[in-house]
Every structure is written in structure tokens, then in C-alpha cells.
């Protein structure tokens, strides 16, 4: 407990109230950690329980590590397809958000041009609207252009959700790479393009990946637009939502667990960036 010792040495007068305060704080943190983790744990217990255990009374709080619920889920009609669709839509959303957002973010970060503020405002404005609602008119439009009930159509809507974030994240990302590095590359024989490729891109790559993952999770988790826009090509969220009334419990819980796994993995991968991303994206 060296850190404790040094703090007390620094502030001997406050040592006593600090100790009880510390205990209070530790228990508060423990309670809040439990508040977050226990519900997830219990869902996992359900997902790893046998089909019988899921409907049993009273329930055991320990997982059985029985894969029958998950197997039941995986073999349920429509599930593999929905799972694949979710991945495809989220992947496409990620690619489109980065493809559209990265150049715009670079322009915002590096150039002062007339209209830059207008563009920034337009991007920010999208966030003041309940975007999934835009799926309503788009169903009509998509039927007209043959994009109804397609993976691309849904990915386009999800890109509207994710791209504004990608633009702002990427702008702050490029802003954090000193312009001098790019200029140094120009003076050392690089064109604008090769300087970007050799200097800016390698430095921006982790952040771009984080922004991409962010876009992926936004799409993966989206329910409303997915449910409105897809009929045959349902994503996992749309599938689970529309079968709520008819699906047996094991299917629901295994589906819920499958839904949260990629999101958790991705979130873990971007945890380092989460706060800087949000800190900047919310100015």
C-alpha cells in the first residue's frame, strides 16, 4: 500500500477522514460495478443454460456451460441469415462511414475554406434529430430505386447515423497530427498524396480503426430502421424484435447474448479512444 502511505504523508491532517471516505468510495464503486455487470452475467448464465434450465424454477445463478440454448438459437429458422445480414450491414456502414467521413474530416482539420463552418453545422445538426425516423420516407424511395429490403439500403441509413460521428472523430484525429509532420514530408520530397500515405495515414490508422468500430457498433445495435426497412433480409436486431411475441425464452436470451458479444469486444478494442472521441465529438 505504498500509494496510500505517500498520500497520507502529504496530507497528514486529513488522514483520518480520508480513510473512512476511501472505504465509502470503494463500496460505492463496488456497488456500481455490480449494477453494471450482474445483469450481463445473468444473461450469460441463461445463454449458457440448457433449454430446460432457462425455463426452470427457481433459477440457478451459476452457468451450466451447456451449449444447447445457443445451438437451438443457431439452428432456428432465419437466425444464421440474420446474423450474416447484421455483419454485412455493419461492415458496409463502417466502410461507407470511413470512406465518406475521413476525407471530410481531413478537409475540416487542415483547410480553412468558405463553407467549412456550414458543413460542420450540418453535420452537428444531424445529431439533433431522431435519425432512425428517416427510415420512414426512405422505404418509399428505396422501393422506387430497388433498394427496398436490401442490405445496402439499410447500410445507407445506418451510415447517416454513423457518418457524422466519423467526420467529427476524424477531424479531431487529423487535427491531433501536427501539420509540421506533413510539411516536413513535403520538404523532404513528398507530394501531398505521398506525404499523406507515408506520414499521416500510419499515424491516423489506430484512430480511424476506432472510428470504424464505432460505426460498426452503431449499425449492429440499431433496431428501428432495421425493423422498418427489412422484411426478408432481416438483421439480427430486426429478427429478434419481430419474433418477440412468438420466440421461446432460450431463443431470446441466446439472441441477446450473441447481440452483445461483438459490441463488447469492439468496445474493449476502442476503450482507449472512447473518451477522447467523445470529448471532441461533443464540443
Amino acid at each position, binding site marked *: 500500500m505504498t500509494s496510500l502511505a505517500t498520500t497520507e504523508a502529504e496530507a497528514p491532517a486529513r488522514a483520518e477522514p480520508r480513510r473512512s471516505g476511501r472505504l465509502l468510495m470503494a463500496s460505492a464503486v463496488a456497488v456500481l460495478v455490480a449494477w453494471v455487470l450482474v445483469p450481463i452475467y445473468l444473461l450469460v448464465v441463461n445463454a449458457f443454460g440448457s433449454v430446460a434450465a432457462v425455463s426452470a424454477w427457481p433459477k440457478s445463478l451459476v452457468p451450466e456451460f451447456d451449449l444447447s440454448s445457443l445451438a437451438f438459437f443457431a439452428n432456428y429458422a432465419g437466425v444464421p441469415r440474420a446474423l450474416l445480414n447484421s455483419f454485412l450491414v455493419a461492415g458496409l456502414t463502417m466502410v461507407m462511414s470511413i470512406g465518406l467521413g475521413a476525407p471530410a474530416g481531413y478537409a475540416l482539420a487542415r483547410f480553412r475554406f468558405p463553407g467549412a463552418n456550414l458543413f460542420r453545422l450540418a453535420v452537428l445538426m444531424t*445529431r*439533433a434529430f431522431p435519425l432512425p425516423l428517416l427510415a420512414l420516407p426512405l422505404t*418509399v424511395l428505396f422501393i422506387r430505386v430497388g433498394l427496398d429490403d436490401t442490405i445496402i439500403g439499410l447500410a445507407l441509413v445506418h451510415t447517416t447515423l454513423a457518418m457524422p460521428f466519423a467526420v467529427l472523430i476524424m477531424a479531431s484525429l487529423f487535427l491531433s497530427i501536427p501539420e509540421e509532420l506533413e510539411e516536413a514530408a513535403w520538404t523532404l520530397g513528398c507530394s501531398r498524396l505521398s506525404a499523406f500515405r507515408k506520414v499521416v495515414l500510419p499515424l491516423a490508422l489506430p484512430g480511424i480503426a476506432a472510428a470504424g468500430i464505432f460505426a460498426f457498433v452503431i449499425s449492429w445495435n440499431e433496431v428501428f430502421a432495421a425493423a422498418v426497412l427489412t422484411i426478408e433480409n432481416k438483421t439480427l436486431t430486426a429478427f429478434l424484435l419481430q419474433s418477440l411475441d412468438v420466440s421461446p425464452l432460450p431463443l431470446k436470451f441466446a439472441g441477446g447474448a450473441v447481440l452483445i458479444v461483438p459490441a463488447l469486444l469492439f468496445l474493449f478494442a476502442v476503450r482507449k479512444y472512447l473518451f477522447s472521441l467523445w470529448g471532441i465529438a461533443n464540443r
Partner: protein
Amino acid sequence: MLRLASGEKVLSYVLILPASLFLAAFFFVPFVQVVVEAFTGEEGFTLAHFRTMADDWKFGPALANTLGLALVVVPVQITLALVMASLVTRLERGRDMVLYVFTIPLGISDLAAGLIWFALLEQNGFLNSILYGLGLISGPQNLLDYRNTAALFAAVVVAEVWRATAIVLVILVAGMGLIPKEYDEAAEVFGAGPLKRFFLITLPLLRPSLQTALILRTILAFEVFAVVAVLAGNNLPVLMGETYSWQFDLQDHKVASAYAIVILAISLAFTVFFLWALRDRTREAAA
């Protein structure tokens, strides 16, 4: 910042063009379309769709439930996130780990969150099992009884608080990171205790982040949908759920659009309200 020649100006427009076109096509055009759909019928302008919407017996409860949920959920989330953020910033060890745990729900969709709480609250669920194990109840209780609106409302509140406090937390922690430590230390030197420092220093300086969090969270609260669908089904109507059922089940996208306009209007009104209520007053006095 570069201030270079016309070539760079061209380049910047080339770079923002794809994103601009995309936003125009998939944000501004659909937005106009929603408005047009909601306000037009066979013979041009009409409020008939709004009348249909308002005449439906579910509209009143849906509006009341949505507003009620936002009114209960958002303040609880802000308070809880403030507590979490203050705790986390004071932690000396395990800060990153605790922060990660606190933000986990951020990656969880409202649908999955609904399912998680459904696992706890359903009749044969974990909460009943635990209460039974402790000898507090004699058998499974129906906690999500469709006749008990208050219970359904409470279940949705709990699930929403559990799920979406993380986003507020992230915004606030990021905001706290931007506040120089010296302010807090100066207040401490002048004799302010931890509570005084929180209310007199941290909270006012956190105003921009609080504003962002409030706007974002309130808008998202009006979009509450999947959590309600899982936990309460049709027994707790909310605006987004009604929009969905008019669009998908009843196939009347005119009325669905009218609902969308209502949600947009409420969101906009609250955004403007928060922008005004939490504006930066320190720059006003001089003007």
C-alpha cells in the same frame, strides 16, 4: 492551419463533396419527405393524418409515457453519471478498469438491454429466483403484469438507466478531463470541502458537457423503443413504438410520418430549451 492557394480550396471541396452529397440525399431529402408525407393527402395540404393520430386512443398514453419516461430517466441518468464520474476521477487505482466496466452498456443495444432485464424480471427470472431463495416470496411473481402499467413503466426506467447512463458518463468524464485541476486545488486551498468544490467548481465548469449530455440523452429518450417492446410489449405505448406499428403493422406511412413529426418537434423543442437554459452566461454580462 494552412492558408494556401485556390488549388487547396478546390481540394477541400472535393474532400467534403461525398459526405455533403450523402447528407443531402439521406438526411435533408428524407427529412423534407417526412414533412411532406405528414402534411399532404389526396388533395394537397391536410391535417387529416394528425387527426387520425390524435383520435387513436393510444396517442395520448404514448405521448404521456414517452415524456414521462424522459422526465424520470434523464435526471436519474445525469445524477448517476455525475456520481460515477466523480468516483472514477478520484480513484487512484484501477481507474481504467472501472471506467471500462462503467461504459460497457454503451456497446449494448436497447434491444439487448431489454432482453437482459427481461431475463431478470420475467416470471421465472432471476429476481424472483433470488427473492425466493432468500425466503421473501413463496413462488414466482408476475413482475411484468400487463395490467400493472406502473410496474412496466418502472421496469423500462430501470433498464434505460442501466443501459444509457454510460453515454452520459463518457461525455461527463471527457468534460471533466478538460477542466484544469488548478481550479479545484485553488478552491481547496481557500477552504472548500469536497461537496462545496463539486457544486461550486466542477458542476458549473462542466456546463458545456452537461448541455451536450442533456440534449443527446433527451433526444435518445424520445426514441425509446426496443426496451419497451421487450419488457412491456404493447401494454406501454410509446411514440416510437406507435410510429413503428403504423408504418409496419398498419402500413399507413402517412400517420407514421405524423408521429415522426411529433417526435421531431418534441426533440427540437427540448434541444432549443437546453441550448437556452444552459447557455454561457459569463459572456452575456458584457454585452
